[in-house]
C-alpha cells in the first residue's frame, strides 16, 4: 500500500466512521492486510490529512477518544441551515389573535375572545410571547386585573413596519376584494374567510 492509498483509506474512515478514531482503531482497519502500516506511518498520514484540510471547510482535531474531521466553526452560519427545524404554519386562530392585538392594543385576553367569539388558547398566547411579538403592557383596572397585551418592537421589525400606523386602516381592510386582488394577484387565496354557517 502506497502512502496516497493509506491517506485515502484513513481519510475515508475518519469521514465514514461517525465517531472519533484513535490510532489503534485506525490500525485495526488493516487487520486483514498482509502489509500493515505502522503506528508512526498512521500518525504521519494524519498530519498530511490535517495539512490537506488547512484553509478548507473541515479540520482534523484530536479529542479524548481520537481524531475526527469536523466542520470548522467559522462555517457554522451556513451549516446550521442543514438542520433547519421548520415548524408547521401558524394557525388561523393565532393569526387572528395577533391581528386583534396589533389593531386593538392594549387588549385583554377576554376582549380578544369577545371579538373572535371563541376562546383563545393559552398556547397561542404563549407562542406569541415566546416569539416576542406581544407583551404585557399592564393590567386593566377591573375585577381580576386582566393583563393587557400589545405588540412589541420585534413585531414591527418582523412585519417590516416602521410603526403601528403603517398597518392598513381597518376601514380599508373591510373593502377587501380590491386589497385581496392586489395581495394575491396569482389567484392564490390563503386568506379566504371561513364560510359562515
Amino acid at each position, binding site marked *: 500500500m502506497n502512502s496516497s492509498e493509506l491517506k485515502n483509506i484513513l481519510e475515508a474512515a475518519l469521514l465514514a466512521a461517525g465517531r472519533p478514531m484513535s490510532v489503534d482503531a485506525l490500525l485495526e482497519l488493516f487487520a486483514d492486510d498482509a502489509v500493515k502500516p505502522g503506528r508512526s506511518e498512521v500518525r504521519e498520514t494524519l498530519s498530511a490529512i490535517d495539512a490537506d484540510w488547512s484553509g478548507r471547510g473541515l479540520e482534523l482535531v484530536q479529542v479524548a477518544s481520537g481524531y475526527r474531521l469536523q466542520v470548522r466553526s467559522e462555517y457554522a452560519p451556513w451549516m446550521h441551515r442543514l438542520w433547519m427545524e421548520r415548524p408547521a404554519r401558524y394557525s388561523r386562530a393565532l393569526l387572528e389573535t395577533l391581528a386583534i392585538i396589533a389593531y386593538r392594543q392594549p387588549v385583554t385576553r377576554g376582549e380578544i375572545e369577545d371579538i373572535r367569539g371563541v376562546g383563545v388558547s393559552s398556547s397561542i398566547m404563549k407562542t406569541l410571547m415566546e416569539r416576542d411579538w406581544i407583551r404585557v403592557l399592564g393590567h386593566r383596572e377591573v375585577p381580576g386585573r386582566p393583563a393587557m397585551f400589545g405588540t412589541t418592537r420585534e413585531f414591527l421589525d418582523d412585519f417590516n413596519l416602521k410603526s403601528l400606523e403603517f398597518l392598513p386602516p381597518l376601514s380599508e*381592510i373591510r373593502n377587501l376584494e380590491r386589497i385581496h386582488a392586489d395581495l394575491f394577484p396569482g389567484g392564490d387565496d390563503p386568506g379566504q374567510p371561513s364560510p359562515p354557517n
Partner: protein
Amino acid sequence: MSVAEADALRAPQQHEMPFAIVHGDPVTELPRDLYIPPQALEVFLEAFEGPLDLLLYLIKRHNLNILDIPIAEITRQYMEYIELMEELQLELAAEYLVMAAMLAEIKSRMLLPRHVEGEEEEDPRAELVRRLQEYEQYKQAAESMDALPQLGRDVFEVRADSSGISPLRVQPQVSIQELILAMRDVLHRAELSSHHHVQREPLSVRERMSSILGSLSSEKYSEFRMLFDVTEGRLGVVVTFLAILELLREALIEMVQAQAYGPIHVRAMSRELE
C-alpha cells in the same frame, strides 16, 4: 439420515442432479464419508426460488434451447426432483405440484396429433416458455441490481462531525398580508354574528365619528380607552375603533402617547374648531 440412506435415495439416473449448491457450484455427489444433516438438504431446496427457477436450472444444466424444450425429458427430471423432495419428507411449496401438473398436461398435449383443422395451433409449451423467459428476465435483473453499488455495502455515507453546530430553529414566517387577512376575517365574522347589519356599517362608523368628535375637546386630552364602551359588545367597540381610525386619517383628531405603551390620549384637532 445416514450417508447410506442418502445414497439409497439416489436412483441411478439421477446422477446429474445436484444435492447441494455450494458457492454456486452444484454438488452432485454426496461425499461418501460425510453425514449430511437434513438442514443441508433444505438449503439445497431453498436454493431454488420456485418451480420456474428449478425448470430454468434444468434447462441450463442440459444446455437446452428454451424455445424448444424437450418436454418429456424435462418433465421426467422435474418429477424426479419432486419425488426426491417427497422422499426426504421436505415440505414442498404447493407451486411445485401445480407445475408438475402443468408439465404433465403439456406433455400429453404434445402427444396429440397437430394440425387437426389445418389452422396453426399454438404450441402447448408456449405459455410455459413465456413464463420461463419472463421469470428469467427478472432473475437476471435481480442479479444486475444486486451488482449495483449499494449504500452501506459497497459505498458509504460520510458524516463529518458537526456536533458543535446547533440546528437552526426557524419560526414560521407570517407576512403582513396574512395578518391583514386574518383581521379581515375577524371583522367579517363580527359582522356576520351581529344580526347582519353589514350594510349599515359605514353609516354607523360615520355616526360614531360624529359622536366621538362631539365628546372631544381641543383644549383637553381625553384618555383613548375611555372612548370605548365595552358594554356595547365587540361590534360597538370595533365601530368606535374604526371611527377613531377614520378621524385620525382625516386629521380630525390627534393622538398622543407620552411613553411607549403608556396610555394614549386623544383630542380634537384645534383647526377643526376654528
